């Protein structure tokens, strides 16, 4: 079975963002980059699937971004993936979800796949679009927010999270599965895994290699400005006996905040 995982490199969750002077990007200097946490579930599920299906199953990791994303591909290889593809092209510098999905889909097609795993969203942009857009580009079913999966060589059953419950879905392969927390516990890269990863094949593809023109990846969305949202907080901190603090709080919630 040919298994593809899409991974993104994102700032670590503790990152305190600083915005560039043109207000269009984040200063990268002090950011610590890690594998997008949801993509760890995707890599884990890909490896589990390979182990389950066996035979000559392979896991190919695909990532798009600047040279630093190679680290994240290597992390996935160290966890146990077989090969990596790094998509890099100046025309993708301001790629939005549309452009990213077109390029990722082309790379997945070139690599060949029966199933594609990805995270439910990347924690930097929080757009949660690339998954569905890749599936649409490839004309395959998508199972988003998957929390349980039972996959065979030809199809599978999944549970996905919706408001107030779960949906149970049956689907044929090929398909795209976006992974939600709870699906599995991602493994760590072992030291031998890290050593082995250094020797695993990692190809670099530009747009031409993917058979795409710059026009095919023209962004549809433009970021005009990045801002830090205002937090106007009242900051009323009550101390003392509950016989005093509690009635005071309730009064404030009714009369000042008007939420009760």
């Amino acid at each position: 079975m040919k298994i593809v995982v899409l991974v993104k490199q994102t700032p670590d969750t503790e990152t305190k963002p600083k915005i560039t002077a043109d207000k269009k990007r984040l200063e990268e200097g002090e950011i610590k980059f890690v594998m997008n946490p949801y993509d760890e579930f995707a890599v884990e599920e890909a490896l589990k699937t390979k182990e389950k299906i066996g035979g000559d199953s392979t896991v190919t990791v695909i990532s798009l971004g600047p040279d630093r994303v190679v680290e994240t591909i290597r992390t996935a290889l160290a966890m146990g993936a077989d090969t990596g593809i790094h998509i890099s092209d100046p025309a993708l510098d301001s790629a939005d979800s549309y452009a990213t999905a077109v390029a990722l889909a082309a790379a997945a097609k070139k690599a060949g796949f029966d199933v594609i795993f990805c995270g439910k969203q990347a924690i930097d942009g929080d757009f949660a679009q690339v998954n569905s857009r890749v599936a649409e580009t490839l004309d395959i079913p998508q199972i988003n927010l998957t929390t349980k999966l039972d996959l065979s060589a030809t199809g599978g059953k999944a549970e996905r999270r919706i408001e107030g419950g779960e949906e149970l879905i049956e689907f044929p392969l090929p398909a795209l599965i976006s992974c939600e927390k709870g699906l599995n516990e991602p493994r760590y890269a072992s030291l031998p895994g890290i050593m082995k990863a250094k020797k695993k094949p990692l190809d670099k593809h530009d747009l031409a290699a993917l058979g795409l023109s710059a026009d095919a990846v023209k962004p549809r969305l433009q970021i005009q400005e990045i801002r830090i949202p205002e937090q106007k907080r009242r900051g009323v901190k009550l101390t003392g006996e509950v016989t005093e603090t509690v009635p005071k709080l309730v009064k404030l919630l009714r009369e000042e905040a008007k939420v009760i």
Partner: protein
Amino acid sequence: MAEKDVLIVAEQRGGTIRKISYELAGIGGQLAQKTGGELVAVLIGEGVQGAAASLGKYGVKKVLVADGPAFKLYSTEGYVTAAAKAVEKVQPGIVLTGASALGRDLSARLAQRLKTGLVTDSVGLDIVDGKLQGIRPALSGKIQHVVTIPESRPQIASIRPNVFNVPEANGPDASVETLDHGVDAGKIRAKVTEVRASAGAKADLTEAERIVSGGRALKAAENFKIMNDLADVIGATVGASRAAVDSGYAPHAMQIGQTGKVVNPTLYLGFGISGAIQHLAGMRTSKVIVAVNKDPDAPIWQIADYGIVDDLFKVTPALIEEFKKLLAQG
């Protein structure tokens, strides 16, 4: 007139229109007024024809209905195809969906099919220089993007629940038209076979207007009962921090935060929650935040509007009584 119109993808479950649909009608109506177009809705489901006209009360002029057994349960393929048909028919300049599980799933696939841009999870929408401008949180709410869709049409946006007001329900019935949706149930590949409701009939956290949330300090699953009691009094849904979930005090479905749910209530009450950045990622956009924590220096105070520095086991029972007293007065 085409291109000026705003199309909303209304949501229903089991034939009942969901609140997000009215929020869509509210902001959709405002945008249509600015573009000089009409507010049109598409309603997809089985046995939903009857509910369609009532969307008019909220300002929708016309409802296209895709009704049939193929839409009994949500499927990406069926619903996206029907929504795309509605877009083809209406030729709107703007399409709005909820940033709900359904709306997010549908809108991204629809946007790719139409080769256009999508503003996910909008918390602000306006028409600026004739174009839709969206404000959306990113990096777990630490930053906001101001975005536009410069050329491609329609401009699609999904809206975060509980942000946009529900308009007063005083409009005339909408005209209802059957949509020729062209969906063949037999051709849908990924099929929903069952929808399982999680225990408790309370509003889901992502849609709840009031949330009572407990942290590690609750110390035991049984102690969440006081959270439930308080929630019952004020009509809230109960959430939890990751520490409470990891300690087995609450199921993961209750987790709020970066790896849990993103919530946006009018009132969030956090009990014994330190306010770690990953927790804030899920609740920082709550309109009013109340903390109860014995540590006066806990990070939660940096974003709390109100709070009590004290033991939650002392505060909660007193709070339940005080709310009961207040609500009995009306």
